[in-house]
């Protein structure tokens, strides 16, 4: 017999919550300095940095919280944090 206890959610539904609105600083990716090392993709706690087919990374500003980790860790200095204009 099934017990109807608890509650359930559909997988991955957190995407409804656009955390980009939290941002006060915006990471700007300077592609001419980028060595395509992929570090920014792996260190982003939001998982919102994606590299295109050429390996060039770009953040999804709908979700980027502007934490600055990618800019801090980028070995090439190819990410600049700029004050968000709203």
């Amino acid at each position, binding site marked *: 017999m099934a017990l109807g206890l608890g509650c359930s959610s559909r997988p991955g539904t957190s995407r409804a919550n656009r955390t980009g609105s939290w941002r006060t600083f915006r990471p700007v990716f300077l592609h001419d300095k980028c060595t395509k090392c992929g570090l920014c993709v792996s*260190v982003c706690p939001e*998982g919102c940095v994606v590299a295109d087919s050429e390996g060039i990374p770009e953040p999804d500003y709908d979700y980027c919280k502007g*934490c600055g*980790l990618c800019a801090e860790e980028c070995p090439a200095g190819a990410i600049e944090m700029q004050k968000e204009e709203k």
Partner: protein
Amino acid sequence: MTGEQCSLFESGHRACGGCAAALAARTILDAAGRDTIVVSATGCMEVFSTPYPETAWNVPWIHSLFENNSAVASGISAALKKQGRKEKVIAIGGDGASFDIGMLCLSGAFERGHDFVYICYDNEAYMNTGIQRSGATPYDASTTTSPAGKCSTGNPRPKKDLPAILAAHGAPYVATATVAYLPDLKKKIRKALDTEGPCYVQVHAPCCTGWGFESEKTIAIARLAVETGLFVSYEMENGQVTRVKKVVRKPVEEYLKEQRRFRHLFRPQRNDAEIAKIQAIADRNAEKFAIDIVLKK
């Protein structure tokens, strides 16, 4: 399949910007892949990932309580075994959940020998309820229940050695890892999943909100913990330490002075006696695990 980018732990979760626990969650799932069932204890990771009716998890995931995390994982693992299924079971808890509140069931599950991996993301206090000390809080850290002040230099007790306790249960694989070295973290998660029996991975996960540093410094702080010898990254197989990350050690104050929770050791004046005690903890770690790289003159 492993190596899928970001997709198993979705964006839109509500962790603080720069949260190491969130980075750990997505890295762990990246290593574990789709055929994984995750059981979470109460705590930041559970709360920020799953504010009902939303969830960031793209694998089957269950939250029950603090106390019974490992019991739930045991039951799932036993049921999968009975049905001949191959999914992997991961139980995840914070340090409060793992070192303190869920210890009884964690010990029971390891003693019974269930095939699952227990992962503690260790942010060294009860963060989700406002930075109370736990059995994982390091010596002298100021928390809301071990506040530094005129009569106290912060948490008076050393950190509990949970990896050793679980190794003593006969766990075939016990490892410590950190968000400072993500490929190493992935390798250890994979190894734990591929080892039969109860395995334990403790992930050092700096918390900008609770420790008091800027969100972009999360990985730098995690790296300093390793480089000062205050956090040792190692593997234990069948009770023996088999691999250790060696470092050219830095003085502990390089780690301490970056964090608000240790500010009282430097202000209003420097407390050399207490800093020396923390240096002694790092020195003991270095000796016990032989982490020092000796540079040739």
